[in-house]
Structure formats: structure tokens, C-alpha cells
């Protein structure tokens, strides 16, 4: 697995440059809570032929708003909604409520202070 770091304000542009729909298969959007405040966000791609995996990633805190990349990759919509639910981070034009209900636990996958 190869990891490439993206600048936060260039995410949309970089992914647009990187993604070619016949070469790369977009797997999913992944979040890894690093500590209570920061989150590593990974866009995971696999090459169709060789199966080589590339993770474009960036580190954000929960106050920031991730850009919506569904104009480049339409199937990212659902992963983005999942991110909103699981980590309580804002993603442009994605709302809460894919999985969680009003009285469910909020952002269950965030790290809690121990």
C-alpha cells in the first residue's frame, strides 16, 4: 500500500488529477481517528489490472469541512455520508442519517479521552 499525502485545500484538485476512471477503481473513503481531535482521511484506490493499492490521505481536525468529490467519482456519495455519521465530520453536501437515528450514539468511531 502506497500512501500519498494531500494538502488540505488541494484535495479536490489533486484527486481530480489523479483519478482516471478506467485505470483506478475507487474502493472507499476511510477514516482513522488519530487522537481526540484529529482524523486521518484516506481515499483508497486500487488499480484494475494489477491490484496495486494507493491511499491518498490527509489529516484534518473535526472542525474542518471535507470537500465533496462526487462530481469526480459519483460513487463516493455513500462513503461520504458514512463518514459524516461515523466521525461527525462535515462533508460538503452530505448530511447525517445514513445509519444513525436521533437517539443513537453520536460519531461512534471518534477516539475518546481515556
Amino acid at each position, binding site marked *: 500500500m502506497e500512501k500519498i499525502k494531500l494538502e488540505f485545500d488541494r484535495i479536490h484538485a489533486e484527486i481530480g488529477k489523479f483519478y482516471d476512471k478506467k485505470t483506478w477503481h475507487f474502493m472507499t473513503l476511510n477514516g482513522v481517528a488519530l487522537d481526540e481531535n484529529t482524523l486521518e482521511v484516506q481515499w483508497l484506490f486500487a488499480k484494475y489490472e494489477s491490484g496495486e493499492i494507493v491511499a491518498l490521505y490527509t489529516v484534518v481536525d473535526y472542525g474542518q469541512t471535507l470537500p465533496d468529490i462526487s462530481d469526480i467519482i459519483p460513487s463516493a456519495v455513500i462513503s461520504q455520508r458514512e463518514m459524516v455519521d461515523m466521525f461527525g465530520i462535515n462533508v460538503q453536501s452530505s448530511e447525517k442519517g445514513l*445509519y*444513525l437515528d436521533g437517539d*443513537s450514539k453520536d460519531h*461512534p468511531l471518534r477516539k475518546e479521552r481515556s
Partner: protein
Amino acid sequence: MFKLKNFRKRSLWILHYNAGSCNGCDIEILACLGPTYDLERFGVLNRGNPKQSDMLLITGPVTYRSRERVVELFTQMPEPKVVVAVGSCTCTGGVFSGMYNVEDGVDKYIPVDVYIPGCAATPEYIIDGVLKGLELLEHKSKEIVKPKKLFKKLSFHKDHIDRRGIAGKVGENDGKD
């Protein structure tokens, strides 16, 4: 004399609902309805209509979002009715117990008559359980059975539970505790 009871015994219609299970028990229920185990030889038919069903076969530990549906389906079924919980996770929460989005077991919401253990419950067990439920059905009266939770107050229309009124209210978030 014309006795409806006798007929019901030989033509049990079931309603199957998945309240958050892993599908394991659901495919075993499907296998029961298939030719090898052939539950249909007892007159059991799977009809997806709560208003015509006598038995609710329910799987899964009840996730938050399926709570209303479970209770709604239960109230929509006419009495007498039996509820059969299929699978360990339906009975107690099983492997899912304690996860943040599940309630441990359906009997928190509706009264359960038969518990079928096993993860996944085998077709033999399911057949046994359904037949046990059939036995129980004979002794049930037409008295209205209330679900245990979710609605603070059941609304009544004259002496009957006002099913339409309740169905209209589902989702209004009343009394989820």
C-alpha cells in the same frame, strides 16, 4: 359446527421480518420453506402481509431504526397471534449484545412466545419452533396483546386498539425509551 380454530391449525401464515440480523437465520428460514425441509407440508405459507398473518417470525437483535417497524408490524397483526424469535441474537442479543446501535433482543419490545436458539438456528430447530408456536396459537384468545415499549400510550377506538391511529403515529418519536 364451523370452527375457525380447526382451519387455522392447518393453514398457518407467517410474516417474516429481519430486525437487524446477519441473514444467517433468514436463509435458514428460506431453506425451511424450500423443498428439502418443506415447512409447507404443515400448511405454513410465507405471506408478506401482516394483516393476514398468524405468526411473526423475527430475526435479529432489533436495531434502532427497525424498532418502529417491529412494533408496527406486531400491532398490525390480528389476534390470536404468536411471535417466534429465531436465532441467538434475536433471543438475547447474542454476539451483538452491547453494540451501540442494537437493543438486546426483541422481547424488550414485543412479547415473545417461542425462542429458538442457535447461531445460526438450524432448519430442524426452526420447524420445531414453528410447530410449537402452532400449538400455542390454539390456546390463545382474541384478547388484544400490547407491545411492551415504544408507544407511551396506545390509542383506543371504542374498545379496540386503534391500529390505524397508531400506524399514523409511528415515527413521531414518541417515547423511545
